């Protein structure tokens, strides 16, 4: 199931990166992500996935400042732990640490029973997002491969 070298490509296939997502509200962003994950075969129960994503939204801001948000769903509706990335043309209101709107998103879909490599990779992505250059790439690059590379934290010194 999991080999010793789970890599970013396993959790973030290029089809899960959309630099021109059509969404004009937080609801639409989450719905669009649900659609992407479902299309990629990562969900067993889309409604449950969304329910758990909204639960997390209720627990505290998932906007981390600088126009970026990291919604996540740890859910029994997820069959394959994965990430998806999206950017929308105009920022939308989103509860954030800097109270600003968001226009770039990294969404984590985690199987509720997942305890392994994939989740570890996701945490590496979260850490990569702490760095300005990665955020810059996420906000400006139109190349999915470049975005994926930046998120894999390749420049991080951890």
């Amino acid at each position, binding site marked *: 199931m999991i080999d010793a070298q789970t890599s970013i490509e396993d959790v973030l296939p290029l089809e899960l990166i959309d630099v021109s997502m059509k969404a004009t509200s937080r609801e639409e962003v989450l719905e669009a992500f649900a659609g992407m994950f479902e299309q990629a075969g990562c969900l067993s129960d889309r409604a449950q996935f969304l329910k758990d994503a909204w639960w*997390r939204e209720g*627990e*505290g*801001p998932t906007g*981390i*400042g600088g126009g970026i948000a*990291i919604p*996540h769903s*740890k859910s029994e509706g997820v069959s394959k732990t994965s990430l998806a990335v999206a950017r929308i043309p105009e920022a939308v209101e989103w509860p954030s*640490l*800097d109270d600003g709107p968001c226009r770039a998103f990294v969404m*984590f879909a*985690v199987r509720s029973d*997942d*305890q*392994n490599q994939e*989740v*570890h990779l*996701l*945490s*590496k*992505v*979260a*850490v990569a*997002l*702490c760095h300005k250059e990665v955020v810059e790439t996420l906000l400006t690059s139109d190349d999915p491969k470049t975005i994926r590379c930046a998120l894999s934290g390749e420049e991080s010194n951890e």
Partner: protein
Amino acid sequence: MKVVGVCACTAGIAHTYMAREHILEAAKERGDSCFIETQGTIGPEYVLTDEQIADADVVLLAVDVAISGEERFAGKPTVRVGTAKVIKDSRGILDKIQELLDKKNAQ
């Protein structure tokens, strides 16, 4: 200042690790010694050693949920904040802790 701490957020996937990263960067900036354990969904990582805890001046718990092993810090000055605060302003929090410690030591 010698800091040890634990980070633990609600879902245990992202904020836990981001909080750690921010605290470590702020500590590096300030020249503090700093060791931070995470208790995320995959279990404890970067687990603190007894020595690190014994040496520490202060314990920083950047947590949104209950953590395990809190008894390890008994008797140490402890600061508890949410992960969001730490992600937002780690430097400010460490500066404030320094202020409080200095006041305490001056008494």
